């Protein structure tokens, strides 16, 4: 019963015209998701990627190991001068992300349109 994480990247522009990389995740985010979460992030070109959205709309389950991977992504992004926001979390995981303090370093939005509009 290995958890499976799906991940792919879409490149869009915000309503203000800024390029935005959207990392779309699906399935589970757990300890086995390192490559899907960090590998996908690390494959983005650093010089041209300054705005990143994490799309959790298709995610069914996130555990503390998965949250730790998101924090590792945020650390790398902060060191690279990138801005990260997230959307598509359920009400429960919005609460969990808030509890652990992730919202201090990544704003959460209910959906892609609101996230893009805020960038």
């Amino acid at each position, binding site marked *: 019963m290995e958890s499976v994480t799906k991940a792919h990247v879409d490149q869009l522009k915000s309503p203000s015209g800024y390029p935005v990389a959207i990392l779309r995740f699906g399935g589970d985010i*757990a300890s086995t998701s390192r490559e899907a979460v960090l590998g996908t992030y690390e494959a983005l070109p650093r010089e041209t990627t300054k705005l990143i959205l994490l799309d959790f709309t298709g995610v069914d389950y996130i555990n*503390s190991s998965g*949250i730790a991977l998101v*924090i590792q992504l945020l650390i790398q992004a902060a060191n690279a001068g990138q801005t990260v926001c997230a959307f598509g979390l359920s009400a429960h995981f919005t609460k969990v992300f808030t*509890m652990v303090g992730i919202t201090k370093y990544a704003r959460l939005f209910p959906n892609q349109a609101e996230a893009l509009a805020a960038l």
Partner: protein
Amino acid sequence: MSEPKSTTVEVRLPTKMGYEKVAMSTASAVAKLMGFPEARIEDLKTAVAEACINAIEHGNRLNEKLSVGVVLQAGTDTLEVKVIDDGTGIRKQPAKPDIDRKMHGEEGPRGMGMFLIQALVDEAEWVAGGEGKSSYVRLVIRLDKEAE
């Protein structure tokens, strides 16, 4: 005076990451039968998952010869969950995770499981087993607690 009725459900999980989802599903089904609101069921699922992950990873140290016991006891307005492993139990509670310290590399990115358990249920206690075996975490969630 008669004792309040309670119903017990037991699950035995293999010591393999991922099988915590079986305990989550079982806890969710029992809580639904008891009439818990959806938000509290989600809290319970995360707390049970984290307790099982700790039992698999730290209690049984990923030893696949061992198993993790999950005992759910449903009372009239309280659901108690015990997650039992063959570890020696925890010696001391880890410090509350600090996102600023994590972001600045002063604390590892992991170590949030016990914090989440305590934050999401009404009671949580960790009990070391006798002779260093059958340690357990006991979680309690109450039906009268309003969903936040």
